[in-house]
């Protein structure tokens, strides 16, 4: 019964707040699952809380998306770092070898591994060089991730503050009405 009520409230909120904004390759079911879990934890009482819950889900989703994008950036631009590494190691045809390595060519992979091993380097050095090549982009993505996390935390703070104020108001109203308010007992 409770699950049915939750689903009804969720569909109503989705109807008013609009559908999830997903990009290609993202699973709608995974997003719905995340939203349902957050809703179950927060149990929104009104439309404002529904908005917050939706925002928290959206921002959590965005952080995950940005993390994925950052990983993709590092993967897609790995050949740039490798090019820089091979150039400094004075390997011939370094640009061509790097592009073949990215395409997964076995001979190129062997050449790269041999060159790196001879210089005492690992694939982590290539990653580090890739980061230095794409530092601006990585920094921008990191900044956006931080901003999204801060916003998400800020929304949770607002929600908490609002509920605390509401609880205080209710307590005051009950006191004025003369109703006894039970204070929580430790170890009860």
């Amino acid at each position, binding site marked *: 019964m409770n699950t049915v009520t939750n689903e009804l409230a969720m569909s109503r909120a989705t109807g*008013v*707040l*609009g559908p999830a*904004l*997903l*990009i*290609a390759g993202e699973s709608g079911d995974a997003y719905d699952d995340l939203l349902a879990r957050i809703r179950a934890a927060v149990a929104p009482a*009104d*439309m*404002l809380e529904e*908005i917050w819950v939706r*925002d928290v889900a*959206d921002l959590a989703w965005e952080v995950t*998306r940005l993390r994925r994008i950052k990983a993709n*950036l590092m993967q*897609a*631009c790995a050949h740039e770092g490798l090019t820089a590494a091979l150039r400094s190691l004075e390997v011939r045809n370094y640009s061509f070898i790097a592009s073949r390595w990215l395409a997964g060519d076995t001979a190129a992979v062997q050449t790269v591994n041999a060159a790196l091993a001879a210089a005492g380097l690992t694939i982590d050095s290539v990653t580090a060089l890739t980061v230095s090549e*794409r530092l*601006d*982009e990585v920094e*921008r*993505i990191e*900044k*956006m991730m931080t*901003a999204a996390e801060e*916003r998400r935390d*800020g929304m949770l703070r*607002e929600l908490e503050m*609002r509920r605390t*104020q509401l609880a205080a108001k209710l307590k005051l109203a009950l006191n004025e009405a003369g109703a006894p308010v039970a204070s929580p007992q430790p170890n009860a």
Partner: protein
Amino acid sequence: MTSARKRCANRRNARKCTGPRTAAGKARSARNALRHGLARSARLDLELMRAIATLARAIAGEGASDQRRKCADRIAAAHVEVMRVRRAKRDLYMEGREWDDFSKRLVKLDRYERRALSRRKFAMRRLDAAPTAAGDAWLKNFGKTKPRSLARSRRPHRRITRCARGRANWPRGWLRRRVPRWRVLLAERNQASATAGLITRRQTDHKRGPPDLAA
């Protein structure tokens, strides 16, 4: 510095080219400066206006006061702006631009989202602080000495004492005759005199008859 001759030539050339002439050309050039349209208010778009109205109704609920409805409208407008920015971000992800251009644009869009979220946050706080329908009545009567209907009373002698400021429901005793201070003092003195048995003739003879001379 531009010479006078060159300036004249520029002006002459400018007169030859007067921009787009056809309606299609004008429509196209009108959108030259448009990048994502997020600086434009959502209220100028009919579809977004409908979304704002629907959301505002859902936030304010049935029978909300005017002030709450206004706050809910502000929240809804800000939320629609937030969603607009997120939609623009989604479109940017889907466009498949170069990494450099993509990340720069994403950061720029983020600025719009931050502003809209800030607007929404403060609008939400205002809504929580806004009084309910009963509170609105409180505000309406704030500082008034009497309700409007009774202010036009044809009995001006029934002056009404100033009610407690901001009292929403007028208490039973609010309609009472205003008595001048000197009359109150006199009544108090008479009362005291009556209690002490020192009643003056002038004030009481018409009620009590002749004074008891034996006393």
